């Protein structure tokens, strides 16, 4: 590789956009995963399958039914919200109700089970064929002579940004968002104030699943629907959650974007095979030197 490329602004800008698209997906996935972990303490290993269902819903709505693609994105978010609620109510809640300190471990194993079941269900129902859409939106934007960005990529980054801001405002300022934060910080105290923590958990899981579904729908042209499509997104979003600090939703978003950018540059300047190595190295370094995450800060007194 020519080292001069490192300083070529158009190439850097081009990769920046690629990295942002990737990063937007990781950020959406990771924010949902982090939200669920932060509030319930559950590591949701079936999060990738929420992504997978999202892609199938998108395919169904836009290709099978032939509806316009924004409808597909909205449908994926809504369907996954309810899928999340049903999973929480029907499977996780009974574990929690049975109480005992072990429920978190039980829930962790349960989500692995959900992952396996959903993957195989998809295989039986839809087969292993990839079903995708080559392009949601035609055309591209040219900036200067050498920077070319497809409208679709801009749309992906734009939607992710809007959803991210909306999520932030919701968690920060709405009554439900405050109840969620309170429940994550001290569930027992939240309960004494009249907050129905069981409902908070259910909604948190639904919102987390909806974010994963949304990510899947948005990225259908890059990740077509097939049963194990969720594998790559879940691995990367787990990395982002660790980098951002467990349960820190804003941290996960920032780390997701960062990861996307790092991968974009790595793939270009080294080779595509190195990007996963870089992610793993980064995670290991963070776990050694800053285990509470890149953005950790202490507000509690010891």
């Amino acid at each position: 590789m020519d080292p001069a490329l490192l300083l070529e602004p158009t190439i850097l800008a081009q990769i920046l956009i690629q990295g942002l698209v990737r990063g937007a997906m990781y950020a959406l996935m990771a924010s949902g995963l982090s939200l669920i972990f932060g509030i319930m303490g559950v590591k949701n290993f079936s999060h990738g399958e929420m992504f997978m269902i999202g892609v199938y819903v998108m395919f169904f709505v836009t290709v099978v039914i032939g509806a316009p693609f924004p409808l597909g994105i909205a449908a994926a978010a809504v369907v996954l919200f309810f899928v999340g609620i049903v999973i929480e109510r029907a499977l996780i809640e009974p574990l929690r109700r049975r109480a005992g300190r072990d429920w978190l471990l039980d829930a962790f194993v349960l989500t692995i089970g959900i992952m396996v079941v959903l993957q195989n269900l998809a295989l039986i129902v839809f087969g292993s064929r990839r079903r995708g859409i080559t392009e949601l939106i035609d055309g591209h934007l040219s900036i200067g002579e050498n920077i070319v960005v497809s409208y679709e990529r801009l749309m992906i980054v734009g939607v992710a940004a809007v959803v991210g801001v909306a999520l932030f405002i919701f968690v920060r300022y709405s009554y439900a968002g405050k109840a969620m934060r309170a429940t994550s910080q001290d569930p027992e105290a939240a309960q004494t104030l009249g907050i129905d923590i069981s409902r908070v958990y259910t909604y948190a899981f639904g919102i987390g699943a909806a974010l994963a579904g949304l990510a899947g729908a948005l990225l259908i042209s890059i990740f077509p629907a097939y049963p194990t499509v969720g594998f790559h997104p879940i691995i990367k979003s787990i990395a982002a959650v660790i980098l951002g600090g467990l349960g820190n939703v804003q941290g996960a978003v920032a780390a997701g974007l960062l990861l996307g950018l790092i991968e974009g540059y790595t793939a270009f300047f080294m080779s595509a095979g190195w990007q996963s190595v870089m992610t793993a190295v980064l995670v290991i370094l963070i776990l050694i030197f800053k285990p509470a995450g890149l953005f950790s800060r202490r507000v509690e007194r010891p």
Partner: protein
Amino acid sequence: MALEVKGIVAGYTKEVPILNGVDLTAEDGLVTVILGPNGAGKSTLLKTIYGYLRPVQGTVRHNGTELVRLKPKDMLHEGIAYLIQGHSIFPRMSVEENLELGAWIFRGQKPRIDEALERVYKDFPRLKEKRRLAAGVLSGGEQRMLEIARLTMTRPRTLLLDEPSVGLMPRLVDEVYEQIAHLKEEGYTLLIVDQNVKKSIQIADYVYVLELGRNTRQGPKAEFEQRLESIIREWL
């Protein structure tokens, strides 16, 4: 009669009840203190009253309403607030957000919440000064103050306090008991469990002694102040 507990049998498993028939009344506007050795079931009693545990037998009535079938989330609607043992602030939320959550049952009624905030800030000016800070950076005494202030956001009638002075240094213990005395002046009915027998008996109007899940003795404060030492020696 504010809070009446009758014949409560309750525990974490059906086979081993912690409470074996507790009868107790916390009269309107008075401070009722529950004393007892470790493991007597004092905290369990408060948890049962607040709906965390469904008793096997017995009734809990508050202002004539039966509470036994209700859940913790219903209790503030019934006019009962509960200070759990240990820390209960939300450390990464601001002081004001903590207080607002104290009025969670008024959610969606901003004027009512603002009114409650204003009233509480008048009673606790120090919290008003620090309202934008994360609650976690407050000192131990201020955190306790915030917890007590938060209890009063919805103006409940009855407050259950579980070990309000535990883990605080002596100077702060005095401060907390001043605040509790102030709550009594404000007309709240208080039911307190505390290891700090001396301090809690000072502000008590009526005292119950709980031993092995049963109330064994009871009476107005005056009776207990004299016999206090012999009672405590028995537990040791």
